[in-house]
């Protein structure tokens, strides 16, 4: 099942990506709407991270192409922000919280220009938004997992982009951080920015996202969460895994109940 977004911000056209000739994504073709909080959901190895890395030009494409804001990535790079998985970097690296957040301003600087007072102010504001301003001189080796994730988010905010790709921002964070991150993402989308999140937790997916992409190497479904987050489509995504299937059924039932209570 596939819904087409009007005035799409992101378009994947017949995208195929392979690692060492082993395909990770097959023929993915979809469009994503502006101003939405979008979840990419699927089992391990479904190609969720691959999809956003392909969008950011970090992987060679076997076929197909990606359009962001209707253009090539290079033409709109400054409007796009990417948040890698937290585990992808060495947190013992000798750098302070401020050093990392300022990296969000580097793309606007040339070889010779140093970050200006304004760049520092933007970085500090971003840290305030994630509740980490008091930690700006802290060394990153001293941060907890949730704090690391907040720093990554602050760096992305400092980029002042219109479109955000985030790889598992909710993975392994405490409940307070999860709530804080969700609030920031909702603020971003309500001001018209688009946030695309790789997410593996089915429990929270239905309540977090406006639009959901179900992925398992091929595109299973893409559309508004109410249309797409259904037992049948989740079963198709997670394929004959019985334990998962049982969980999915339970989840959908819970969601229907809680949905009734809500509205």
């Amino acid at each position: 099942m596939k819904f087409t977004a009007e005035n799409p911000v992101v378009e994947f056209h017949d995208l195929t990506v392979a690692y060492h000739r082993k395909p990770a994504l097959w023929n993915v073709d979809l469009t994503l709407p502006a101003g939405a909080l979008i979840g990419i959901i699927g089992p391990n190895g479904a190609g969720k991270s691959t999809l956003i890395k392909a969008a950011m030009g970090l992987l060679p494409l076997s076929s197909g192409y990606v359009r962001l804001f209707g253009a090539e990535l290079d033409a709109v790079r400054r409007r796009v922000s990417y948040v890698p998985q937290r585990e992808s970097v060495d947190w013992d690296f000798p750098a302070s919280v401020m050093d990392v957040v300022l990296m969000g301003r580097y793309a606007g600087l040339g070889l010779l220009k140093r970050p200006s007072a304004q760049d520092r102010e933007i970085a500090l504001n971003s840290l305030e938004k994630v509740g980490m301003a008091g930690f700006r001189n802290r060394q990153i080796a001293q941060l907890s997992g949730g704090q690391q994730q907040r720093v990554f988010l602050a760096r992305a905010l400092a980029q002042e982009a219109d479109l955000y790709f985030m790889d598992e921002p909710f993975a392994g964070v405490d409940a307070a951080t999860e709530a804080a991150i969700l609030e920031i993402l909702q603020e971003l989308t309500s001001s018209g920015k688009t946030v695309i999140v790789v997410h593996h937790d089915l429990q929270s997916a239905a309540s977090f996202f406006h639009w959901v992409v179900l992925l398992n190497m091929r595109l299973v479904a893409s559309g508004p969460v109410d249309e797409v987050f259904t037992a049948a489509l989740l079963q198709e995504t997670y394929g004959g895994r019985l334990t998962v299937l049982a969980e999915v059924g339970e989840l959908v039932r819970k969601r229907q109940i809680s949905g009734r209570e809500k509205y």
Partner: protein
Amino acid sequence: MTMDAVYIILTATLFSISCGLLGAFLLLRRMAMVGDAIAHAVLPGIVIAFLISGSRESVWMIPGAASLGVLTTFLIEFFHRRAGLQTDAAIGVTFTALFAVGIILISVFAGQIDLDQDCVLYGEIAYVPLDVWMTASGEVIGPKALFIALGLLVLNVLFVVLGYRQLLVSTFDPAFAAASGISVVLWNYLLMGAVSFTTVAAFNSVGAILVVALLVVPPATAYLLTHSLKRMLGLTVLFAFLSSACGYVLAVALDGSIAGAIVTCAGGLFVLVWVTQLLLRRKPAKELHPLT
């Protein structure tokens, strides 16, 4: 202290600062042994440069060796990315193979003449004051190696200062750097190119073990002490100087190899810093500060 001592200590310090500044980034990229690989892999470059030029002047040797150094880093990257080999395995395969090619070239083409790494490439720092530059009127300006070291240091400081942010972000988070439009591949090759050039130029004057050690040990000692990259680079400079000065004094006292003594002092400083930290129990504050 004689003028010779000053020349030797100064030359060693300048070379070791160059090596340490680049080595700090190698260390953080987990590629500290690349210097060792380059030290071996440049052999065929030297032989080829000799065969083409017929001369053993460093004017020919250094470009020949440096181009092989860049090729080495290119091959390491290639095997790592394209063949899916781990970095250490890619380094091992590349430098042993190139070194072996160099040995074959020597045995086939240059067997009659005195050409090997010991004489061409592996300089001896004790001879630094002997090889001097003179003006046309015969006035001695100073040791050649000292000026080479100074020029090299200026280039490396320029490289690290101008490229500081690009090197920082592409070392810490290459995926983010690439996504925000910084050419990670280019900066990697620039760094490796600088390492090749520095390694070759430095061991022409001061010897191989010294260079390989200076790429790794002072930055590693600095890494123990700080969680700030700028302070780490500053401490690297300090340890580079301390190792060179103490090493010279030690070598004179023992009447032994200067290069060996410098490396011994660098290693000694590392152990001293590490033990002091253990004794003071000043572990880097790892306790977490949860937000509530």
